[in-house]
């Protein structure tokens, strides 16, 4: 599998994801936001504060050169994972429905966070078991997932919710922590699986997400 981690001005979890993929033996590279060709099997939109997140999170990054071709790429079955800021960018791109609002208590939250796997039947989550609880840390100020009632119903109906918070930390509707598009090749999630890839750093729950993706290509 060829993976590419996009570097926007203001990305700061780019090297964290890169290292995890690299350690797992993936063929991974950085992709500068100003490049114009997506020539990988998996595109990673990493966490951080692209363009300072100054207007709305992800609002400006969405117009990066590299993302011009993302609709075609997704249409043709290319995989995309957006983590934290990456999730925000995916909603701004409308590749995923809804939006991420300020956390309910208005504070940035960094902490461990227990999630329940709601859908284990995706390219991304296949090494987890439905109902299983995992600990991925969160670190965000605007992770409060919002979609209108209609959209929520549809997400539920199509089984598009992949991860849910066990103790909702930010006010997200339906405890949503991560969702996938209908086609099943675009995942957006607020928690950081890349921060749980070593027992030295508190656990390895996150590593299966990356392993799962890599193994799918073998």
């Amino acid at each position, binding site marked *: 599998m060829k993976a590419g981690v996009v570097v926007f001005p203001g990305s700061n979890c780019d090297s964290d994801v890169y290292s995890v993929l690299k350690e797992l033996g993936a063929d991974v590279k950085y992709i500068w936001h100003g490049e114009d060709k997506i020539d990988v099997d998996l595109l990673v939109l990493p966490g951080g504060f692209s363009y300072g997140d100054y207007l709305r999170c992800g609002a400006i990054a969405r117009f990066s050169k590299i993302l011009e071709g993302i609709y075609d790429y997704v249409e043709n079955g290319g995989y995309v994972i957006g983590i934290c800021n990456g999730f925000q960018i995916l909603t701004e791109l409308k590749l995923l429905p809804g939006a991420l609002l300020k956390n*309910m*208590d208005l504070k940035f939250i960094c902490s461990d966070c227990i999630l329940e796997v709601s859908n284990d039947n995706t390219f991304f989550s296949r090494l987890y078991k439905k109902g299983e609880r995992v600990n991925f840390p969160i670190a965000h100020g605007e992770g409060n997932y919002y979609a209108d009632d209609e959209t929520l119903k549809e997400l539920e109906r199509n089984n598009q919710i992949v991860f849910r918070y066990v103790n909702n930390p930010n006010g997200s509707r339906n405890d949503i922590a991560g969702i996938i598009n209908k086609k099943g090749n675009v995942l957006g999630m607020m928690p950081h699986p890349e921060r749980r890839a070593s027992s030295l750093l508190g656990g390895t729950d996150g590593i299966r997400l990356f392993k799962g993706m890599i193994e799918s290509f073998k």
Partner: protein
Amino acid sequence: MLKAYIDVTLKKSILDPQGTAVKEGLSKLGFEVETVRIGKHIEVTLNDMNRENAEKLIDEMCLKLLINPEIEVYSYRIEEE
């Protein structure tokens, strides 16, 4: 030159915890108010052009970048500078 004053607020149907927090803050200081909503205020200075074009331009900017229609609404006024 023209100046557009744009106000962006969350849709009515969406909770505004920031507004609620400010309302509470005001009440602690003894100011009792009915509601508070908080949004963004954007001032854009444009080169001279006719008003109609300016309005079209501002609408376009709002819809493309300045707001997210999923969650926000906007209004504006344009003045000569």
